[in-house]
């Protein structure tokens, strides 16, 4: 370790190297994922993988504390969490206990069938509106064209003219 005399000089050398590395754009190492960092903290990585993590840690010094904490957690006795935290965290999954309100609810997993029902209902109402609109429009056309009231579109939809199920106006008057 540096003595009191040369400590400042060594720190200045390191700062100079740092500035140079930053100026040349060195140190753009991709961030390792949590599993890789955890494996590094446990000393499970081979030399090349560990070197890549250390390269990144040198660029992200604030993350060194994460590795130190993870390494300490391996042998540390279990800590005690506040009861309120345990209750609220437990309430994040499954049926909601009315006595416990988590800060936020997780994403609803059963939202799928609701979506299908909503879209189905929308499609059915569009179809019904179209049919009624078509029938009313056709009725108006028949009325304006001087047709008889009996030849309504609603009737046409279910019993087309000439099907013989209902009597026509002529047949009706002859009765």
């Amino acid at each position: 370790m540096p003595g009191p005399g040369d400590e400042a000089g060594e720190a200045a050398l390191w700062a100079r190297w740092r500035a140079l590395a930053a100026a040349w754009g060195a140190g753009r190492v991709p961030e390792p994922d949590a599993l890789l960092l955890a494996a590094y903290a446990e000393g499970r990585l081979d030399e090349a993988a560990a070197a890549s993590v250390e390269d990144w840690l040198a660029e992200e010094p604030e993350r060194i504390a994460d590795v130190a904490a993870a390494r300490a957690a391996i042998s540390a006795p279990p800590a005690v969490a506040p009861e309120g935290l345990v209750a609220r965290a437990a309430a994040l999954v499954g049926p909601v206990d009315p006595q416990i309100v988590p800060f936020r609810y997780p994403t609803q997993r059963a939202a799928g069938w609701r979506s299908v029902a909503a879209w189905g209902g929308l499609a059915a109402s569009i179809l019904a509106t179209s049919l009624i609109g078509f029938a009313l429009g056709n009725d108006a056309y028949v009325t304006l064209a001087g047709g008889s009231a009996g030849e309504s579109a609603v009737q046409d939809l279910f019993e087309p003219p000439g099907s013989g199920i209902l009597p026509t106006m002529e047949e009706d008057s002859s009765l």
Partner: protein
Amino acid sequence: MADAVDLAALVRGDKAVWAAFVRRYAGLIFSAVRGVARDPGDAEDLAQEVFLRLCKDDFRLLKTYDSTRAGLSTWLTIVARSTARDARRRHQLKLTPLDAVPEAALSVTDMPREQIKLPDELLSPRQKLVLTMIYEKEMEVAEIAAALGIDPQTVRSTHHKAMLKLRSHFALEDAPPKLDRRG
């Protein structure tokens, strides 16, 4: 801490398994985020953020855990601190008005650049990390050794070799050019 959790049942959303998981790891997560939090109340909120992140999107994050690569406690500690730091950063971004940011931090003037080529392999990643810990994080040798899981003597020798390389490199760079006296 021994890691014995039925992960398959956990990611299926089994409430009893989730409750057991929370009871078992709440202390670990709470203690992991305490180092990032401002106060105990903040630590509780951050720990809740961690649990929320673990179960959200149908346990997407928990499903990425692989017990063959790292222990659950180690992984959870890393995830907890990373989540807490992100949450704190988001919170700070929301609360920091532009007027509070020093003008120097907003300036885009170029830093003076030394016209010296930096050798790619001058320092090894381990040497860079040790020097970062000593000069930027101001950590003691024992702390560095504990954080890296190496012997304190290894930390000292790594530092010593790195400094020799830096001195030699910059001595060469700073040396005045030799004059050609021929002819």
